[in-house]
Structures are given as structure tokens and as C-alpha cells.
């Protein structure tokens, strides 16, 4: 889903960079604070980053003839919130840009906004909504990861449509959406299932991980699924 190097006019590159910087700043600060205050959380932070690493490297060809990959931001947005996710996503994106020629340095800001901020923010909202409706952790996790994935791609389409809309903004937006978001639906379901299964595993084996997660107390603390 990453916008390629040089494919975004520099004005927009600047706009998205400026939008991403505050999130990155607070994310970095929050992660340093978490690791310093609760060293036992270090591994969970690494874990949520690891999911991003693993899933965003799995490129699959997909329905519309293009290919894309899951984003893997579901776990970290649920456990640590949007700012931390943006920081972890930035690490993944920089890795992919420098080593894999996937994404780009100039479009890094835009990619962080879509994969690290907008998508996870939607996943975060979905998680809160479903948890406040007292749905179980795996189901909420499934929906959160799935919506984080799809909306990442919707945001990418929006970013491209904002930059290139000579044939009308809505037409351009739907063109981009057809390539990016449609491809993404089966992948989003797969990603949702992976996260739901992992959430199930965590609930059964290490439920205290979700203790710090926002929205957990709404449904009454510990539970089995």
C-alpha cells in the first residue's frame, strides 16, 4: 500500500511529514517511558512490532490483479495506542524503504500517516466500540485489525486522490480505491483472523497483557473466551 518514491508532489510530502511528526514524537516518548517504567512490557512492545514486521512482509497477489500485504498494526494499537503504533510503523517503513525499495523516503510521511496513524486510529475506535458493547476480546481484535488494515488503504487512496485529481476528485478517489482497497478485503480478513487467534492465545495464556489495554475494564476485567 505504500506510495512509491517520488510519486507524491513535494508539497504533499511536506504536509504528511508535518502531520506525522507529532505522533512520532509522542509515540517515541511513550515507548521509552513504557520500557523504562515497566521493563516486563519490553517484550510486549517488541511483540506488537514483530507482528508488523512479519505481516507487512507477506506480499500476496490479489483479486484485482495487483498485490498488497497486511499491515499488522492491530495488536499494537489495541495495547499501546495510536502514537506508539505510528512509531513502530515508522521503523518498519524505514526498513522497507531502505532495504527493499518498497515505499520511499519522500513519501515516508504519507505512508506513516496511512499505515501508522489513520488505520490504527480506526482500529482503536472499533476496538473501543466493540469492547464497550461487551463483545469478547478475539472478536473485537478481529474487527479492529481488519478495519485498521482496510482503512489504511482507504487513506492511501485518499492521499493519492488529493494529489492527483485532474478528472475530478471523486472519480480519482474511486479509481484508487478500486486498486488499493478492493484488493485488500481478503487480506484484511486473513489479518483479522490471525490477530483473533493470537488474541485467543493471549487470553488463555497471558491475560494480564490485556490488563493495560484500553477498554478492557468496560467489560469487567479478566475473562475467558
Amino acid at each position: 500500500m505504500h506510495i512509491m518514491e517520488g510519486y507524491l508532489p513535494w508539497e504533499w510530502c511536506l504536509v504528511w511529514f508535518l502531520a506525522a511528526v507529532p505522533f512520532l514524537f509522542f509515540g517515541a516518548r511513550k515507548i521509552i517511558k513504557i520500557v523504562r517504567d515497566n521493563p516486563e512490557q519490553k517484550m510486549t512492545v517488541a511483540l506488537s512490532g514483530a507482528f508488523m514486521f512479519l505481516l507487512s512482509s507477506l506480499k500476496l497477489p490479489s483479486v484485482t490483479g495487483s498485490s498488497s500485504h497486511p499491515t499488522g498494526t492491530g495488536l499494537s494499537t489495541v495495547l499501546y495506542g495510536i502514537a506508539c503504533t505510528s512509531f513502530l510503523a515508522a521503523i518498519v517503513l524505514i526498513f522497507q524503504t531502505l532495504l527493499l525499495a518498497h515505499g520511499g523516503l519522500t513519501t515516508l510521511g504519507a505512508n506513516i500517516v496511512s499505515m501508522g496513524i489513520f488505520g490504527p486510529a480506526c482500529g482503536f475506535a472499533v476496538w473501543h466500540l466493540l469492547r464497550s458493547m461487551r463483545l469478547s476480546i478475539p472478536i473485537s481484535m478481529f474487527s479492529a485489525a481488519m478495519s485498521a488494515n482496510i482503512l489504511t488503504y482507504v487513506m492511501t487512496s485518499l492521499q493519492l486522490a488529493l494529489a492527483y485529481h485532474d478528472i475530478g476528485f471523486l472519480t480519482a478517489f474511486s479509481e484508487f480505491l478500486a486498486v488499493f482497497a478492493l484488493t485488500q478485503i481478503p487480506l484484511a480478513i486473513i489479518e483479522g483472523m490471525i490477530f483473533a487467534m493470537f488474541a485467543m492465545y493471549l487470553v488463555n495464556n497471558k491475560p494480564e497483557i490485556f490488563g493495560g489495554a484500553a477498554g478492557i475494564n468496560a467489560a469487567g476485567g479478566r475473562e475467558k473466551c
Partner: protein
Amino acid sequence: MLMKKNHKYLYSAGFAVIALLIVCTLALGAGNNSEFGGSDDAGGEVIDKVSDDFGGPWWNGIFGDYELPEETESMLFALQAAAGAMIIGFFIGYVYHGKRDRKFGKHSEPEEKEE
């Protein structure tokens, strides 16, 4: 609420559905003669379509036009996946070990013979 015993089957069912979905999308993609291109490239084509004066990317990145050979690129992707999977595997092992220690005490493993 499900019984603990059933979780094994739930995991297997989950993996089966995931495998099925992957095969289906792959088959569909093959049916449409799609190339394994990456939606990045498809995005470039759409930009061409919706924009009148798109003159191609204005910067080619620090590596310029140089593209890694395909094998190297997929190797690096695999490396990235491996790094992620390693940490996840470590975490699962850690949880497993912690659980066992809590259950049986720290030094109750049959392998540990030194006393």
C-alpha cells in the same frame, strides 16, 4: 465460553480457513492472469490515468534506478518475515515456560539432572 479443550480445534480451524482464503485469492489472481507486481506499481498506472500532467516520479530514491535482483529482494522480504516470526516465537516460548514454571516449580524439569 468455550471449554479449554476445544481451543486446539479452534486454532486448527482458523489456520485452515486462512489457508483456504489464501489459495482462493491466489487462484482468482491466477485466473485473471495477474502478475505478481505489488499494488505499488498498479498505483502508478492509476496516477497516469487520472492525472493529465504526471511526468513520472520526480525522485528515484537514494539508489536511483538500480533495482535489486528478484531473488535478493524476496530474500530480504523473507528476512523481514523471519525477524518478526522469531520474536513472536520467542514470546510464545517465554509464555509457555513461565506457565510451566508456575505450575511445577522452577527446577522440576526431568532434563535437569545436575543436583
